[in-house]
């Protein structure tokens, strides 16, 4: 057993264990923290497969920026708010579990069949990727692909981001509420109390 196998085993156990813990965590903050653990373990598997830049981006953007946004909203809405335990549909939980298990079995079967088919054609192309990572380097090779073959989708994502920003600003604006609701100063609040 080599060090790579060992690292993969750790990442596998941490990712799977944290994902299962997400299912059973009651508190939304705990779910977010377990999700961060899953993402760090996945970054480890990216590193193992030679995707160095993607692993760094996974940590910085996913585990950093996006999860901070989630935690920010959780804190804004109130942490101590507990989830309702009343189930309107009593059969939904076992049904979801059964269908999820079915889905997992289906994906695993398809993956096994696909790998069998792929191994006869190409096999493992990690040698080519290793050469790419060594000669121009992972970041440079990635930039060449991104800014040549995928230039149009790349520009389209900038339009998507601008649309998202404008949409969120429209959603978050409270129309006329600042002038309509009178603000109470701390002195007046004490007076009322």
């Amino acid at each position, binding site marked *: 057993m080599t060090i790579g196998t060992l690292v993969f085993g750790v990442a596998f156990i941490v990712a799977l264990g944290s994902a299962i813990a997400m299912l059973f965590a009651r508190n939304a903050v705990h779910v977010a923290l377990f999700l961060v653990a899953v993402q760090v373990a996945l970054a480890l598997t990216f590193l193992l497969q030679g995707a160095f830049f993607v692993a760094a981006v996974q940590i910085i953007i996913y585990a950093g920026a996006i999860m901070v946004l989630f935690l920010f909203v959780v804190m804004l809405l109130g942490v101590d708010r507990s989830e309702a335990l009343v189930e309107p549909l009593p059969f939904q939980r076992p049904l979801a579990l059964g269908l999820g298990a079915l889905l997992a079995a289906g994906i695993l079967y398809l993956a096994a069949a696909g*790998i069998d088919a792929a191994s006869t054609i190409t096999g493992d192309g990690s040698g080519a990727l290793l050469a790419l990572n060594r000669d121009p380097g992972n970041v440079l090779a990635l930039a060449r692909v991104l800014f040549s073959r995928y230039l149009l989708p790349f520009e389209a994502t900038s339009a998507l981001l601008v649309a998202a920003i404008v949409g969120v600003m429209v959603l978050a604006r409270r129309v006329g509420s600042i002038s309509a609701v009178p603000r109470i100063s701390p002195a007046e609040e004490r007076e009322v109390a």
Partner: protein
Amino acid sequence: MTEVAPSYFLVLAALLFSIGVVGALTRRNAIVIFMFIELMLNAVNLVFVTFSRMWGNLDGQVLVFFVLVVAAAEAVVGLAIILLITRRRESANVDDAHLLRW
């Protein structure tokens, strides 16, 4: 490069995706449902990176960037909508927002 076969990574991705589906179906808090959707996107990212390694080129790793951008935009807009619903209804429970249900 690791000597661990690509199929093990795909198995991990399939299990994570299925857990994400089960979580999104069973949980009631809208923010928690969103986190399970992020888990599914992460599983798909792992599949992309694994396929990039199997084919020996970088297209899969480029696709991870696009998934990341779409996930960021989706999270921002979705969380703003959840915030608005919660401001009006005092709860993030998805069962409370049933005005459009038959």
